[in-house]
């Protein structure tokens, strides 16, 4: 079976400085891969390159048959297929501050996928309930705790039903009990057939929940 995500010899430079060098990895459907390493080693950079949020200098990225090449980031109109395949959960959650938790989740369903408000709300309500934040649907982002905001952000990324989910440092702001709840949630997503690539510098979390751990070195 071909990999859901294949990264081959990925290198990224910022201002002539190499921040990521020849990274290669694969993520299969139903697999949780942890990307480890000390701060500044390029974990976030790798995730952002996969999400086409920054250009890379050499190598290749293929997501479920959609290939990204070195050079400038393509226009959004040429990335539609990639956007349908990749969900991204940012370390700072990046919830839209002017919308409630529910509307954060329904926004892409309505305006990208063209669902009606009722359809979108049904999907979003189910997702929020599944992630155990159903009771917070009408809350504003700044009323949510760190853990709640993270789960809303996961629900938002999952709403368009992408097969691949990228998560940047999901455990950074969580206490140990919350980490293990998050781990269980992520395992459940894998069981649904999604592939997860999670950057973390939390070795214990990676050992406990990841199928494979890839360690980057400076």
């Amino acid at each position, binding site marked *: 079976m071909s990999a859901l995500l294949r990264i081959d010899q990925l290198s990224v430079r910022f201002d002539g400085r190499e921040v990521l060098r020849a990274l290669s990895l694969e993520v299969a459907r139903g697999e949780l891969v942890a990307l480890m390493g000390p701060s500044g080693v390029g974990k976030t950079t790798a995730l952002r390159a996969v*999400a086409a949020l920054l250009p890379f200098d050499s190598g290749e990225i293929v997501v479920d048959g959609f290939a990204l090449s070195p050079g400038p980031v393509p226009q959004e109109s040429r990335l539609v297929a990639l*956007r349908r395949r*990749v969900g991204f959960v940012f370390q700072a959650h990046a919830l839209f*501050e002017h919308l409630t938790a529910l509307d954060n989740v329904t*926004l892409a369903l309505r305006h*990208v996928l063209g669902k009606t408000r009722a359809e979108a709300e049904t999907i979003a309500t189910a997702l929020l309930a599944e992630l155990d934040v159903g009771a917070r649907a009408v809350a504003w982002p700044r009323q949510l705790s760190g853990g709640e905001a993270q789960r809303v952000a996961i629900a938002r990324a999952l709403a368009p039903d992408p097969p691949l989910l990228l998560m940047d440092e999901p455990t950074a702001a969580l206490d140990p009990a919350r980490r293990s709840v998050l781990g269980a949630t992520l395992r459940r997503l894998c069981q649904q057939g999604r592939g997860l690539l999670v950057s973390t510098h939390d070795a214990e979390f990676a050992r406990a929940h990841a199928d494979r751990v890839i360690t980057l070195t400076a």
Partner: protein
Amino acid sequence: MIAAFALCLAAVQHPTQVLVWGGDAEGGAPFVEADPADPSRVRGFDVEVAARIARGLGRRSAQFLQVQWSNIDQSVERGDFAIGLSGVEDTPARRARHAVTLPYFEFREVLAVRPEDASRILGLTDLRGRRVATLGSTIAYDMLLGARDSTGLIAISYDDDVHPYSDLVAGRVDAVLLDHIIAQRALRRRGGTGFVILAQPVAIGHYVGVLAQANSALRDSVDLVLREAMRDGSLEQIFRRWNVWDDSQGAFFERVLRGGMAAQAARTATSNQVLAYVPSLARAAVVTLLVSILSMTLAVIAGLALASGRVYGRSVLRVATTLYIEIIRGTPLLLQLFVIYYGLAGVVRLPAFIAAILALGLNYAAYEAEIYRGALEAVPRIQLEAGRTLGFSELQILRLIRGPQALRYALAPMTNDFVALLKDSALVSVITVVELTKQTAIYATNIGSWVVPGALCAIVYLAMSLPLSRLARRLERRWKAP
């Protein structure tokens, strides 16, 4: 400057030394103008009349103090100078409020029209529905206001006596009503072409000297000097030197010396007079509100376009929009008003109201653009990236994520700007739009006091700006995510 101030102070405190008199050199020749040979000195028939009065009073000399023409009455009451002489008109209101000398010159209020209209227009009654210009705060302006109701003409007030005539030639107004001296001067400046002065005067008026109400003793002395100057021919010589003497002046002097020119019946400001101005103040308030709302609408639309250019545009567009913003913010609004109204008149002859909205709107657009740019950039970049990963287009991100949040950031400064614009709209009076402040000034000049008009004007401005501030606070509260 301090030395000049001390000198003025000394002059006022020691009246036996010099006679300090006030006038407006902007009024120009033949009244008072800066001497081309030595611009630090003034010349004109009023300058010489002042010198003659000083001599007659036994003063060493007459010293000129520059004061804006429409403020002469207020300044003389404040004690800035002893006597105001600068084509000051003899009016009942002025006599009621101040000590006024004998009239020393008789002028005719004359109509100027374009040559092709000369056969059709013979007086104010022929100007129904037409635009008639004059200098604000003058007898002529009061006459036009009086004729507005009876003849249906449209009175347009100017702050200077040059632009009424250039606008007449340009077709912006259909007639000008002003003193014959001013009309003849304007015609000479244009080489005798462009308009004609109707022979039949609309009214007769007189120039006087104005002194503080409490200074009536000095006024009586000045009257004696003026009679003497009429008798000994020195006043006639002055007027002849400045080419403003004609036979009617001789007959007028006769009447004055015979005592036929007793002070006209003084009229005091009554409560009726105060009430009479309320409708015109209300009309002016509507003009202020209309100018402000339309200008702000233009400013918001143009500001959004400019901000988009700065945030999303390629480098050429970014440089162009930045240049526009810096030029507009770096030059006075007053200058921009003049350029759009008078400067562009050769290319496009904009009506005053449109020019006012354009100038204010395009000026405020530069400030709005900076507010919108700041607000757009205040939305965290990571939210825009989250939008991209969810598959939104750039336009959708602006419409659904960036725009709504930026609007909330921009709301408070936008309201501040609108309140400021409401007050800055007073500047458009320089291009003949009579709005609230201008109407108040006209009102204050006519009744000779700023107290009631000033208070009324302030109340109207507050009534317009306070609800706005409240509305903005409410919107902010409602839109603000807790």
